């Protein structure tokens, strides 16, 4: 058997070899796939819902909602454990060959899956089954790619090499847009909703074929090969990673001191910013998409910049600076975004006082990540209507049904609890009309006026938010890899990554929305990322050690 050759540290100053480029390309293709799927299931959610779920009775819809939620929030970390364990036992190459096969085939099969109209309830069951399977495989994909690239990278270049993986989020978005919008433009809106939505799923087979072909031609990672030759592979990676305090402690630090903050900064920079533009600021969807895409285009090279910089000045200073600067500047940046995107709204908020007078016992924390909860009290309904119209308001305790006070005008809200559907609908329409008419009279705009938007300023702010993302995300893969020994690396780094990004990042939109509705201030949703980024900054600064000079073979 040939002895594994470790990447030479002397290679620090030399350009990337063809083999190294191939390693990065092969690994990144899998994560492009991951992101492509991520955007497909967002952009096509309404069509998929119509084709597979809308004919189900309400109880079944609740069950399927919970299963879809589980696919992202429970199955992915579980997949991190399953495939992480495999990766540490049988090798990186074969494990992430399996993950991409499962992921790719699950996506492709959605493209040929009969709908509810053809095979009844079997259609949503199979679809959810495929998403669960895909979520499982996805849990093992990122950790595999990061580990594989880092273990091929020369010492002193791991940050630069692994940062390429992070650029795939933007590539995945652009690819999904090209395929979806290209298909929709070519065949028309009606045909796309009818059958054309299948094409983006079917197209994924080409991406899969290329990925599998390239990955088959790759060698096992030198670090794993060396460890295997020496008979030092772990027999029980899960027990070693999470059953021994010395490793578990690092897993917890990786989560709380790194990925938690990285995730919320990333979600805020890309997804919450988009939601903030189209929701509270009422910028039309097409304009907001282009503004975000331009910011991503400008910001994406910074992944490489900060990844490479982390090889020189360290991972920790860059990630911690990203968390701290984000936490300190989110409020002023989002307020500046309001002035730039919807100056009329900023003016109305500054001049018109709005108050909700309600019995505090009637007011819920409107946390609704699956979209299945119903909020029916007069307080909740009043706050929903105001939040939907981007109104910042004060809460005053009172008795009886909730009231909205706008200037000297008072509008009484209603409770839909126990009301027949028709009556609830009529009351809803009347209440919304009365509130909205009054809001308009006080200068609250129905839409952001494109003529008044300061687009260069909006792009500058959004780009800055993306640059924060690149600061926390660019060096993260290298740092996670360097925190753990080769024998349990895949397992140990995958779990904190998926819990951080899945749970802390994934719950940001729903939690942010609930905080806004609860407090009456449209900026207060930012407390969620600010608090978690600050926790990561404090824990990271105190307990996480710099890793750039770590010899990843030292503990093998």
């Amino acid at each position, binding site marked *: 058997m040939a002895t594994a050759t470790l990447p030479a540290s002397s290679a620090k100053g030399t350009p990337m070899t063809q083999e190294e480029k191939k390693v990065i390309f092969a690994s990144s293709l899998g994560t492009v796939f*991951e992101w492509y*799927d*991520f*955007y*497909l*299931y*967002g*952009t096509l*959610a*309404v069509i998929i*819902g*119509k084709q*597979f*779920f*809308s004919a*189900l009775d309400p109880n079944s*819809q609740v069950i*399927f*909602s919970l299963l*879809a*939620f589980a*696919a*992202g*929030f429970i199955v992915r970390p579980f997949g991190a454990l399953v495939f992480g364990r495999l990766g540490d036992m049988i090798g990186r190459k074969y494990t992430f060959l399996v993950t991409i096969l499962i992921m790719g085939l699950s996506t492709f099969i959605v493209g040929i899956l009969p709908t509810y109209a053809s095979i009844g309830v079997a259609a*949503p069951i199979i679809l959810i089954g495929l998403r669960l399977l895909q979520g499982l495989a996805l849990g093992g994909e990122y950790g595999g790619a990061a580990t594989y690239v880092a273990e091929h990278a020369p010492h002193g270049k791991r940050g630069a090499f692994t940062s390429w993986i992070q650029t795939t*989020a*933007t*590539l995945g*978005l*652009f*690819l999904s*847009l*090209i395929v*979806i*919008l*290209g298909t*929709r*433009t070519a065949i028309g809106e009606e045909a796309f909703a009818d059958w054309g939505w299948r094409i983006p799923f079917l197209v994924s087979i080409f991406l899969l074929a290329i990925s599998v072909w390239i990955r088959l031609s790759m060698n096992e990672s030198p670090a794993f090969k060396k460890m295997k030759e020496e008979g030092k592979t772990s027999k029980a990676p899960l027990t070693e990673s999470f059953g021994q305090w010395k490793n578990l402690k690092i897993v917890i630090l990786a989560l709380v001191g790194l990925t938690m903050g990285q995730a919320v900064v990333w979600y805020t920079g890309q*997804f919450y910013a*988009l*939601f903030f533009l189209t*929701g509270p600021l009422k910028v*039309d*969807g*097409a304009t907001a*998409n282009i503004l*975000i*895409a*331009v910011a991503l*285009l400008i910001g*994406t090279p910074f992944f490489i910049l900060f990844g490479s910089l982390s090889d020189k000045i360290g991972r920790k200073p860059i990630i911690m600076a990203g968390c701290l600067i984000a936490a300190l500047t989110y409020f002023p940046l989002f307020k500046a975004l309001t002035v730039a995107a919807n100056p009329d709204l900023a003016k109305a908020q500054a001049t018109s006082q709005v108050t909700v007078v309600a019995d505090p016992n009637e007011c819920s924390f409107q946390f609704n*990540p*699956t*979209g299945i909860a119903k909020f029916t009290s007069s307080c909740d309904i009043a706050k929903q209507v105001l939040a939907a119209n981007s109104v910042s308001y004060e809460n005053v305790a009172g008795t009886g049904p909730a009231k909205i006070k706008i200037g000297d005008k008072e509008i009484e809200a209603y409770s839909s609890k126990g009301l027949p559907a028709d009556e609830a609908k009529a009351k809803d329409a009347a209440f919304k009309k009365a509130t909205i008419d009054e809001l308009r009279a006080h200068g609250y705009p129905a839409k952001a006026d494109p003529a008044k938007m300061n687009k260069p300023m909006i792009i500058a702010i959004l780009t800055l938010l993306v640059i924060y993302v690149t600061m926390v995300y660019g060096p993260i893969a290298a740092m996670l890899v360097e925190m753990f020994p080769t024998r349990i690396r895949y397992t140990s780094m995958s779990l904190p990554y998926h819990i951080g*990004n*899945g749970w802390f*990042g*994934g719950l940001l*939109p*729903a939690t942010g929305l609930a905080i806004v509705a609860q407090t009456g201030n449209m900026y207060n949703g930012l407390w969620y990322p600010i608090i978690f980024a600050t926790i990561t900054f404090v824990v990271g600064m105190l307990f996480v050690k710099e890793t750039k000079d770590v010899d990843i073979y030292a503990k093998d």
Partner: protein
Amino acid sequence: MWKIVVGFLVFAALAMWLLSKGGDVDISGEKHGIDVAPHAASSASNP
């Protein structure tokens, strides 16, 4: 490197051109509920 930069720019330009032609699509990522009506605003997303 220049090939990657040019490729990325072409790719991005194509995506943005398509967005400008009819880009009112949801790019906020995967939904973790089931969308049975348009604009299920509170559904969360994660990669």
